[in-house]
């Protein structure tokens, strides 16, 4: 497993990120951010590497990852669908959108489809409260979601990936 990572050059990327923060105090969180941006998640081999290079116990590195909602030890789908469940979106029907997405994709919120295409996440307030309910698909924001609109967003994505529904 580790040899495979070396081959793809991910290991060097990780080293480079750690090196860039060597002089800065309190750099663990920014380092983890950058590595996750690069790799998509933070597997155990990365945690070990960070622990060694930054001289922080592995247990502490892992405790940081499990504490903060944005860090993930599991890989995510190609399309990460975030449903905002801030109060404003909630009073405008965000829970119905979550239910519908779960039904459409056949997975629970927090999980990824077996083909690795979709992840549903319930996310913290995105600050677009004036336009709720809001969902995001990777970096694209969709506002004023309604059941038919949600269905269209998903079917469009499925068509795009060539799975044919």
């Amino acid at each position, binding site marked *: 497993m580790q040899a495979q990572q070396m081959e793809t050059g991910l290991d060097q990327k990780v080293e480079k990120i750690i090196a860039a923060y060597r002089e800065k105090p309190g750099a663990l*969180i920014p380092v983890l951010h950058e590595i996750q941006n690069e790799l998509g998640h933070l597997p155990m081999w990365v945690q070990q590497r960070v622990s060694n290079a930054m001289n922080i116990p592995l247990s502490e590195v892992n405790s940081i990852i499990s504490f903060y909602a944005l860090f993930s030890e599991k890989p995510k789908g190609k399309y990460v669908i975030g449903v905002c469940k801030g109060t404003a979106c909630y009073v405008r029907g965000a829970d119905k959108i979550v239910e519908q997405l779960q039904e459409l994709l056949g997975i629970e919120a927090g999980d990824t489809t077996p083909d690795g295409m979709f992840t549903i996440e319930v996310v913290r307030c995105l*600050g*677009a409260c004036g336009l709720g309910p809001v969902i995001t698909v990777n970096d694209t924001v969709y506002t004023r979601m309604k059941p038919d609109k949600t269905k269209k967003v998903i079917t469009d994505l499925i068509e795009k990936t060539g799975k044919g529904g």
Partner: protein
Amino acid sequence: MEFYRNHVLVCGGGGCQSSGCHIIRDRLIDSIKKRGLESEIKVVVTGCMGPCSLGPMMIVYPEGIFYCGLKPENVDIIVEKHLYEGVPVKEYFYRDPYSDEPAAAIHEIPFFTRQMKIALRNVGLIDPLSIEEYIAFDGYFAFAKALTQHKPEDIIRLVKESGLRGRGGAGFPTGLKWEFTAKVQGRPKYVVCNADEGDPGAFMDRSIIEGDPHSLIEGMALCGYAIGANQGYVYIRAEYPMAVEHLQKAIEQARKYGLLGSDIFSSGFAFDLEIRVGAGAFVCGEETALLASLEGRRGEPRPKPPYPAQEGLWNQPTVINNVETYANLPSIILKGPKWFRSIGTERSPGTKVFALAGQAVNTGLVEVPMGTPLGDIIFDIGGGIIGKKNFKAAQTGGPSGGCIPAGGLNVPVDYESLREWGTIMGSGGLIVMDENTCMVDLAKFFLDFCQDESCGKCIPCRM
């Protein structure tokens, strides 16, 4: 310098970005070029103008004509009729939610006229990525005045006299906090900005950083001078990538202009800023948890005292204030505490920014003098309830706050009055609910939220 007969301001706030304002801007620039008007008309993308539910929107100056709910094809017509022929296009005007009458200019629309802007003074009015525009609106004048004409203790005195209270929620007097920190002997000292706007339904801080990042930088620099700190940190939540980007660019511009760095205004005073991005933990909005997170640890709160003023970041004396608090400071130093006290109430001077959300017609960002009745915010500025339904309650203060029912619509919005109604000011989230909202369900929503976001440190949460 070029002169333009018209400036067309396109709202590029977070809400309008999601509504597709970039398509409107591109079409506008294109259409202006096609008509050969590019030397006469300038297009500026600004921060949040306020009424997010009406986006995409734009204002044509100098007349102040307001167009909203725009579709790309509408833009061509506006360029042809208004910018070329000089006849504003009524079809795309704002319509009063009560009378359905069109209103042409922003000075005819209650959403704008009923507000008073201090923290948001430049948001929606200038290009946030241009330090020149900030300076043209008196930006960095307060900082220059402080460094060249005032001693640090004068600044603390002015802030104390202004009566400014922390806009993050608790309302602690800002000047007093600064004075405590200035008097502690240890060095170095730090200035920290809490931009971990975690309350669901709140986006005031986001809009200030995105729409006027230099006002935050100037406010923090003023604090640094007053307390004797040379380094500041801004802790922003990761959910706000555009705020991070705008602030980063603004910091670089300020460094280039010598407004951050060493020997600022040849005064010998040095100050610099660094951004730290959060990682998704509601509890990090609490100041001791935020400081732990800044140090790279789990964001768990600790008991106070010692207060951050005594032992803050890396156990050094630290001032930690909220974004809106810092954004108020340049105006206070420039115009004086007497001016500031003339706005708002005796015990809560100044204004407060609210994120108006939920079932109101005009949801968005508003700033009003403290003491404005709640009903005025919801019905005059907010345009009432969607679908003319009945108002049930307004939720303020985020998960630690409470709800005000219809009987409280006359309550003046200030720290003390809200407390009497069993809620708190909080950071400024104001969520309007209509007759269809189930209050039991809402209570469950907040309990679930608090359970999810509990860090598990204190016993009441674990039981």
